[in-house]
């Protein structure tokens, strides 16, 4: 048998009907994650056709985008301020009740960002196909699952048939070698990869991250890398499962155990890309040469080392327009740029290890005067774990704002917004114009760069606070 990539194995195992020149493949979906923003119109479609959900046990809902991070609103002491958000939340409650879909609702102890709680509960497993009406579904690829974002019409397709019509994407192997230097994180690595590929460079491709640097990453770090695959335009990001993956899944409530786990392990161990398997394209990155990265422009590919300067590109109108929006000057050092906000959270960097790293820098220090530092755990479980370790005290005592879980300021749908013209160092995934609020200026960076900057009140190099 010929040598196959991880992607090829996942694809073949889920073909209900193979593709032909005239028709796309019918691809089976093992796990369908649902949230309040991209599902209402899909449930409406089911109602108008008079059909139900084909596989309720493979469908799992939560709410994260429009949900308040303010405790009083979340737990009902006061009404949810934004009426449209409340309506969307209630609509999901109604849809899940009517169609008998499991929902981790607003006040549920295990609620959180959909891409955080899937792995946390052990729902996300190697070998699965996983979709969600959300582009950051690529996160789950960190487990060796084929996971990608879909639109609402496709959410309807999966609800109705548990399948999607798909053309087979191409593959791109991203080989990463060399150890990450101190102060350089998985976030910096993925920002560097996106910078190299460009924001459209991965279009039509599934990325597989390979090499010793990737193998040495924790699951949290792997999820950060796969999460941002979409920012290079990629269909999905993948990392082959290994002992790190299996250890992470051990004992998780929705992961297999006992004899089922033994059987699962046997099949999971067959998944990694075979020696000699070919990718359509490849890319090599030397991680040992990287520095902490930060974006200066209006897409995630526009980044520099935090010690670098804003690039000069005289004839590039898009570049000029981006700098105009960001209020930055070509050639200026990015270090020292004053900021008004820092945001720690999101499906990219809202995990316990991210909070620990930030708290480690913040302990005994203060958030600069004039800086709002919003800290939003990725799930209620992470919030509890962080509180059990006393991380919340570190954040609160330093002057940060410690919140309930959700997508929050990554896209501000719940009203957690950056004001017009203000600068925000954000651990999230997109720095598009207006992403964090109309006129908001987002600089994407790692949790430790965001924290160091919150302390300094200006863009700072986290390595200066690390001894």
């Amino acid at each position: 048998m010929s040598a196959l990539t991880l992607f090829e194995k996942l694809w073949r195992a889920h073909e209900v009907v193979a593709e032909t020149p005239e028709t796309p493949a019918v691809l089976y979906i093992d796990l369908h994650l649902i949230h309040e923003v991209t599902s209402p119109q899909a449930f409406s479609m089911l109602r108008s056709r008079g059909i139900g959900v084909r596989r309720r046990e493979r469908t799992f809902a939560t709410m994260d985008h429009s949900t308040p991070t303010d405790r009083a609103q979340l737990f009902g002491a006061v009404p949810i301020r934004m009426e449209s958000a409340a309506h969307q939340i209630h609509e999901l409650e109604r849809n899940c009740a009517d169609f008998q879909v499991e929902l981790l609702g607003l006040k549920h102890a295990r609620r959180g960002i959909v891409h955080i709680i899937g792995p946390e509960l052990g729902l996300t497993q190697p070998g699965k196909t996983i979709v969600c009406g959300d582009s950051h579904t690529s996160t789950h690829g960190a487990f060796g699952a084929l996971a990608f974002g879909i639109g609402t019409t496709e959410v309807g397709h999966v609800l109705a048939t548990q399948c999607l019509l798909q053309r087979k994407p191409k593959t791109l192997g991203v080989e990463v070698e060399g150890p990450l230097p101190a102060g350089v994180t998985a976030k910096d690595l993925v920002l560097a990869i996106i910078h190299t590929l460009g924001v459209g460079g991965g279009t039509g491709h599934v990325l597989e991250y390979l090499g010793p640097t990737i193998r040495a990453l924790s699951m949290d770090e792997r999820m950060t890398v796969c999460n941002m695959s979409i920012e290079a335009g990629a269909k999905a990001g993948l990392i082959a499962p290994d002992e790190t993956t299996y250890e992470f899944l051990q004992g998780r409530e929705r992961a297999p155990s006992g004899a089922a786990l033994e059987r699962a392990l046997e099949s999971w161990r067959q998944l990694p890309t075979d020696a000699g398997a070919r990718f359509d394209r490849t890319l090599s990155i030397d991680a040992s040469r990287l520095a902490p990265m930060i974006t200066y422009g209006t897409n995630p590919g526009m980044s520099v080392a935090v010690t670098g300067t804003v690039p000069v590109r005289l004839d590039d109108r898009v570049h000029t327009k981006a700098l105009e929006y960001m209020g930055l000057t070509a050639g200026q050092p990015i270090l020292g740029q004053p900021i008004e906000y820092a945001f720690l959270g999101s499906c990219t960097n809202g995990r316990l290890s991210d909070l620990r790293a930030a708290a480690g820098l913040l302990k005994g220090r203060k958030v600069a005067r004039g800086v709002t530092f919003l800290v939003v755990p990725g799930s209620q479980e992470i919030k509890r774990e962080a509180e059990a370790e006393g991380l919340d005290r570190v954040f609160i005592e330093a002057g940060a704002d410690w919140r309930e879980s959700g997508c929050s300021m990554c896209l501000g749908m719940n009203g957690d917004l950056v004001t017009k013209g203000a600068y925000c160092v954000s651990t999230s995934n997109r720095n598009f114009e207006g992403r964090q609020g109309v006129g908001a200026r987002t600089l994407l960076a790692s949790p430790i760069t965001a924290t160091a900057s919150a302390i300094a009140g200006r863009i700072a190099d986290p390595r200066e606070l690390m001894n």
Partner: protein
Amino acid sequence: MEPIRTIRSRTVVMARTNIDTDQIMPARFLRTTTREGLGQHLFADWRYDALGNPIADFVLNTPEAAGCQVLVAGHNFACGSSREHAPWGLYDYGFRAVISTEIADIFRSNSLKNGLLPIIVDEATHAALIAAPGTEVTIDLERSTLDIPGVGAVAFVIEAFARYCLLNGVDETGYLLAQSRAIDAYEQRAFA
């Protein structure tokens, strides 16, 4: 869905590269639970000032843009979020086709399910279109050609099944539902 055969329209040009779906439909408009009426919010932050007044020099606010059904956009159009509210908004506004050198995967898939044609052309054709806003083009879906006066008929590739569905008004959900026997058989095989 209504079958689509030809689209004949003047073009609107937005030359910027990497126009993302957050620009096409800002997140604050995603709190809706229907798909209607999103055209009014299309490109909201480029189209209106803080008071909600139209910004005169934004292309969609110019008299020439009125009634145009074809948007010519810079490289890598509609990257970012998977929000189907982006093609819903473009369609509701009146667009029936988007032309670029590259169009992001999820948006392309979403567009095809909503009667909005994502058309990818080569650099030279794109440059000619960008240089001449208001050109009256004809898109013939059956022949998969884009006819540009002075340039001629340029062939484009559109995924065969989506093209079939658009030409014949076939809905993909219905097609998938009709695969139920194959899906049953897969489930028996895979989860035995």
